[in-house]
C-alpha cells in the first residue's frame, strides 16, 4: 500500500497556467509549508508534518516536476527556475487561504524556499533551509576533488539528451544510489517509502533533470543579480546542516549569514535525509524558528 501522511487531506491545486500541485494538508493553526527535495516527494515530511500538525496548518506539496504534481515540459529554460517553482508555492498557499506563511525546505525544496524568501518577502514569515547552500555559493565551494560529491549536479547540467537517456535507462538504480548513500540510518527510509520515492522519480526524469539544469544556469543568474543588488532575506531564517566537521572545507554559516542577517545556523548529526533520520530535532528546530 502506498504510504500517506496519516490524517492529512490530499488536494490538487492549480498554481500556474496549466500546472497543478499535489499537496497533503493537515492540522490547524498558523500555516507552514514544507518542501521536499531530491529524490523524494512530500512523504519525506511524514514525521515532522505529523508533529507540527498538532498546532499548525501544515501544507506539504510535491514540487512542480516531482511526485504527483504536474510536470510541464521545459521549453524556454524558465519552467523549472527556482523563481517559477517558488511562485508555485506562494500561489498554492494563497489558494489555500494563506497570504502569509512559514516555509521550510529540504535539499531542492530548500533552494525553492530560499528563492521564495527573496522574491516574496511579504508572504514568507519564517524560512528554514535544510542541508543545502544557496545555488550561487554551492557552485562556488564545489572545487577540486571535493566536487565529486556533486557529480550529479554536473551530470544533469549537461545539455538535453545524455542525462535524460542515461538516467531513464537505469532510473531505479540512479535514484536509489542517493537514497542509499546519503543516509546514515537506512532504517529511516523504510521499504514502502523508498519504493514510493523510486516510483515517483522513475516517471519524473525529464522534469528532475530540468530542475537541476536550471540550477546550473538561470538560478545562478537570479542569485547573482540579487547578490549584486544587495538583496537579503528579511525574515528570521534557520539553517540546519549535516555535521560534516572540518571535512566541509568552507564556512557554511558565514555564507548563509551573508544572505540572512537574522540567522540561526545549526548542525545535526545525521545523514542528508534529516527530516527522516532526526525528525524530532527538525520539528524542534522548526518550532524554535516559528517562535522567533
Amino acid at each position: 500500500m502506498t504510504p500517506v501522511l496519516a490524517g492529512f487531506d490530499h488536494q490538487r491545486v492549480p498554481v500556474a497556467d496549466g500546472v497543478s500541485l499535489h499537496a497533503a494538508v493537515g492540522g490547524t493553526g498558523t500555516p507552514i509549508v514544507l518542501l521536499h527535495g531530491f529524490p523524494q516527494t512530500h512523504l519525506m515530511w511524514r514525521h515532522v508534518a505529523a508533529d507540527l500538525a498538532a498546532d499548525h496548518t501544515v501544507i506539504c506539496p510535491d514540487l512542480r516536476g516531482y511526485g504527483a504534481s504536474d510536470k510541464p515540459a521545459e521549453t524556454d529554460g524558465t519552467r523549472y527556475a527556482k523563481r517559477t517553482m517558488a511562485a508555485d508555492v506562494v500561489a498554492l498557499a494563497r489558494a489555500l487561504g494563506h497570504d502569509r506563511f512559514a516555509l521550510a525546505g529540504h535539499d531542492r525544496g530548500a533552494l525553492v524556499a530560499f528563492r521564495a524568501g527573496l522574491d516574496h518577502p511579504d508572504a514568507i514569515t519564517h524560512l528554514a533551509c535544510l542541508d543545502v547552500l544557496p545555488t550561487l555559493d554551492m557552485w562556488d565551494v564545489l572545487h577540486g576533488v571535493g566536487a565529486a560529491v556533486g557529480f550529479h549536479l554536473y551530470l544533469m547540467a549537461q545539455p538535453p539528451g545524455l542525462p535524460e537517456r542515461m538516467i531513464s535507462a537505469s532510473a531505479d538504480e540512479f535514484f536509489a544510489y542517493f537514497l542509499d548513500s546519503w543516509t546514515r540510518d537506512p532504517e529511516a527510509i523504510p521499504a514502502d517509502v523508498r519504493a514510493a520515492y523510486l516510483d515517483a522519480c522513475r516517471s519524473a526524469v525529464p522534469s528532475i533533470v530540468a530542475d537541476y539544469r536550471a540550477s546550473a544556469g538561470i538560478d545562478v543568474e537570479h542569485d547573482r543579480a540579487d547578490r549584486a543588488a544587495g538583496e537579503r532575506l528579511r525574515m528570521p531564517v534557520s539553517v540546519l546542516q549535516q555535521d560534516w566537521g572540518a571535512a566541509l572545507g568552507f564556512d557554511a554559516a558565514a555564507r548563509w549569514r551573508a544572505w540572512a542577517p537574522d540567522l540561526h545556523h545549526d548542525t545535526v548529526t545525521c545523514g542528508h535525509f534529516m527530516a527522516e533520520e532526526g525528525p524530532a530535532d527538525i520539528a524542534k528546530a522548526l518550532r524554535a524558528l516559528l517562535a522567533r
Partner: protein
Amino acid sequence: MKTVNGIRMHYRIAGDGPPLVLLHGWPQTGYCWRKLIEPLAREHTVVVPDLRGYGLSDKPRTGYDKRTMAADVAELVSTLGFERAGVVGHDRGGRVAHRWALDRPRQVERLAVLDILPTREMWRRLDAELGRGYWHWLFHLQPDLPERLAGQDVEGYLGYFFERWTYQRAGLEPEAVAEYVRAFSAPGALRAGFDDYRASFPDDAEHDEADFAAGRRLAMPVLALWGEQGLLGTLPALDIWREYAHDVTGAAIPECGHFLPEERPEAVLSRLRAFLS
C-alpha cells in the same frame, strides 16, 4: 601480445629506427593512432600498446594508478629491447606518459603530451566552470554507478564524448566509433576505464603532489599540443606545463577539438616530426 608487469599487453609495432611509443586515451584504444603510425614508422620503430584495462590488453582488478600503468609500458619497451624511447600520450595516455617520465626519466627521451594538463593541475583548477567540461571526471570517480548507467548504452555514452569533444567530427569515422564501442562493450572494459579515472584520486594525486613538493620537474624536451577549440584552448596550457618541465614547447592545433591524432593528423604529424628531429 606480451606479458609485462604481470598482465598481457596487446600492442602494434611498425617500422624501423629509434623507438617511439604512442599511448591512447579514453574512451579509445591504440586504434586512435591509425593515421599516424605509417608516416611515423618511416623513421621510427612505432610501438602502440593498448593500455592496461583497454582494448585487447588484460583488465585486472587493480593497478590503474599511473605509476603502475607507466611501469607496464616501461617494461614493454625494455622487453622489446629498447633502452630509451620517445613517448607521445593523448588524454589518459598522456597522464601515463607524464608519470613514466617522472618515474623513469632515463628511459623517456622526449615526451609529447596531447590535450592534457598535469593531473595535479586539473584537481587544483577544477571549479564550477572547468567542472562543466570535466564532469565525467567526477562521475567516473563514483563507485559502480558509472558502469551501471553507461553499460545500458555503451554506444550512446561513448558517442556523447565523440560528438561533444570533436571539432572535426569527420575525423572519427563510423568504423572508428564502432571499433571503440566494440572495445568498451567487452566484459570489464567500462569498469577498467573508470578505474583509470578512479585512480586519479587519491593515488595519482598523491604521487603527483609528492613529486611537485620535492621539486621534481621533467628535464627531457617536452612538447605540449592541444586542440584550439577544445577546453584547453581556454587555459594558459603552455605556461602551466612550464611549471612542471624545464624545456617545454607547444602550440594549439587550430580547427581541432580533443581528438588531435584523428581530427588533425597532418598538423600533429608535422609538429611531432619537428619535435623528434
